[in-house]
Structures are given as structure tokens and as C-alpha cells.
């Protein structure tokens, strides 16, 4: 988990904002924990973790009851600290980027997060389960949509 914490961090922030991040974080961690006994080594550990965490994120439903139960049971929350030197410009850009990702449709969000994490088309196809050419077609459309959203945000008056 320590080695792959960046994957979890990106998924949680890409699918949820504010306090919801804690709920989703618990959901993803639990999914990872429950899926460990099923690991047979047929997929690479990274692919496996991507599949489990994105599955959990896609199926996550935010309900107040679930949220309270999980917070009471596990008490853990997403650490609100970041590596590297404080940099307000990068932080602001990251916040905008995550906000724009959260505006995408759930499956598009997954694809965009995988792409930003540097996965190849083949690896993304392995995680999601459709062909490489489809990954390419979808990704081009999503990237255009994302950059347009971000440009729109930049032009918005403060």
C-alpha cells in the first residue's frame, strides 16, 4: 500500500471532493484489503491495484449512513499533506485539474486518471477491458473536453 499510495491518492481525489474523500478512501482501502486473498499473480500488482481501486471508485455511492459507519469503524481519513516544497501555484492548478476531472463521466474519469498516471494504451486496455484503439479514441475526446473545461475555468472572473 505504501508503494502504491500515489495510485490511491489520485483515484480518491479524482472521484471525490471535500469530506467525501474520506468515505471513498475507506471504500477503496477496504476493497484493496478484501481483494488481497484473490491475487493469483495473473496480473501485475500495479494493474491489479488499478483495477480494484477504480472498480471501488466507480461503484462508490455516497450515502450519509455509509459515511458515518465507515468513519466510526475505521476512523482513518485522507492525510491533508503533500510531498515536496509548498507551492501555491501548483496546488491551485492541481485543485483545478482534479475539479475538472470530477466533471467528467465516471468511466472517462478512470481513463483520464490512468492516462495521467502514465499508463500505455495497452495497460489501460488491460485495466478497463476494451481494445487499445478504443482507448485512443476515447482518450482524445476526453483530453479535448478536459482542456476546454480548464480553459473555461481560466477565463472565468475570480
Amino acid at each position, binding site marked *: 500500500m505504501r508503494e502504491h499510495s*500515489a495510485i490511491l491518492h489520485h483515484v480518491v481525489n479524482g472521484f471525490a471532493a471535500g469530506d467525501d474523500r474520506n468515505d471513498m478512501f475507506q471504500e477503496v482501502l477496504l476493497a484493496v*484489503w478484501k481483494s488481497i486473498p484473490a491475487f493469483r499473480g495473473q496480473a501485475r500488482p500495479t494493474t491489479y491495484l488499478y483495477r*480494484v481501486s477504480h472498480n471501488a471508485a466507480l461503484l462508490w455511492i455516497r450515502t450519509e449512513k455509509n459515511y458515518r459507519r465507515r468513519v466510526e469503524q*475505521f476512523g482513518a481519513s485522507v492525510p491533508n499533506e503533500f510531498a515536496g516544497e509548498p507551492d501555491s501555484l501548483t496546488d491551485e492548478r492541481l485543485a483545478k*485539474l482534479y475539479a475538472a476531472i470530477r466533471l467528467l463521466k465516471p468511466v472517462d474519469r*478512470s481513463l483520464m486518471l490512468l492516462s495521467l498516471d502514465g499508463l500505455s494504451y495497452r495497460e489501460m486496455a488491460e485495466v478497463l477491458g*476494451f481494445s487499445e484503439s478504443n482507448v485512443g479514441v476515447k482518450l482524445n475526446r476526453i483530453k479535448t473536453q478536459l482542456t476546454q473545461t480548464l480553459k473555461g475555468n481560466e477565463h472565468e472572473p475570480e
Partner: protein
Amino acid sequence: MNLNELQNVWNSPRNNLPTEAQQRLADKFTRQMIRRRRFQFFWLINTFFWLTVITVLAIRMIAVGQTTSQEWGLFPLLFVPWGFAVHFLRRYLKPVTPVTCGETTIVDSLRAALVANRETRSHLKLVGILYAIMIPLLAVAMRQLYTVGKVSERELISMVIFFGAVLLLGGAGIAARYFARVLPQKKQLDALLTELTGEAR
């Protein structure tokens, strides 16, 4: 921001947790899971201990002949708690792997989740139908008991209240699970699969 800038921002160290936080997080989560497993272990030990005590007492009292023969009926009744206890022990020893584990692609695991959801819906519908059949059968049985004089009017009222409450609570539980959990999950899975396969295939 253009795509290169996006990627640079994404790859910046600010988009990850510091090493200490990662370590803390991993430790805390592992501790919580161990605590959870330990709690399940003690719960099972406690349950099996008390069930064994009750069963041994029942065997001693009934088999030795300290009670009337009618109380042999206690043994079939004990199958229910023993059945539950064994079920939870099996779940503890061999945890159920979710269909959405990472061995298959997301599309395949969502399909498997949809199949599991369909099975759950069928199962709940079947239980609901059995409940519906049970109500008139129970009513007839209770009326017969009253007619032949096996139960008094007061006992009949008690039976109606008891079985009515049991059926009502059970039915409400099944309906709540079906409409509040299983059906929304089906809609969500349908939507995700349409999004994934509808555009991609």
C-alpha cells in the same frame, strides 16, 4: 493549461503524499484491519463457547431424562444458531472474494457484479413470494387450531401479533434491501456498463 502543463502538474511531488504520511497511513490501516479480525475471532470464540454450553446442558438434561420427551424438539431448534455460527466461522476462515477484485478487467468484473446482482434480486423475489404464500397458510393454520380448541382466543391473538410482527419485519427488511440497495446497484451497474461497452464496442 495545455496537455504538457497538465502532465507536469500531475507529476509534481505535490500530487502525492509525503513518505511519512504514506507510512503512517499504511500502519494505521493495517492496525485497524488486525483489530477488526481480532474482534471477529473473539466474537466467534464467545459464540461457540456459549452454544457449546447450551448444547451440552440440553443433552445432559434431555438425554438423562430430567425433562419430558416433548423437549427433544429443542435439538432441531439448536440447528439454527449452530448453522449461523458455522456460517460465520467459514466466512472468517475463508473470506468471500468480491466479484470486483482485480483478477479480471473492470468491464468483466462489472458484468460479474451484474450477474451477482441479478441472482440476489431473484433470491429476494423468491423469499418475498414465500412470505406471501406463508401469510394465508399461517392464517388458516391458526384458525384451525382455534376451531378445534387447541388454542384459546387469547393465545390466538398472541400468535397473530407474534407472527404478524415477524412477517412484517422480515418483509420490510427484504423490501428495503431490494429497493434501497439491490435495485439502485443494478441501475448503477447498467449505467456503467452502457458507458463502458456502449461507446467502446
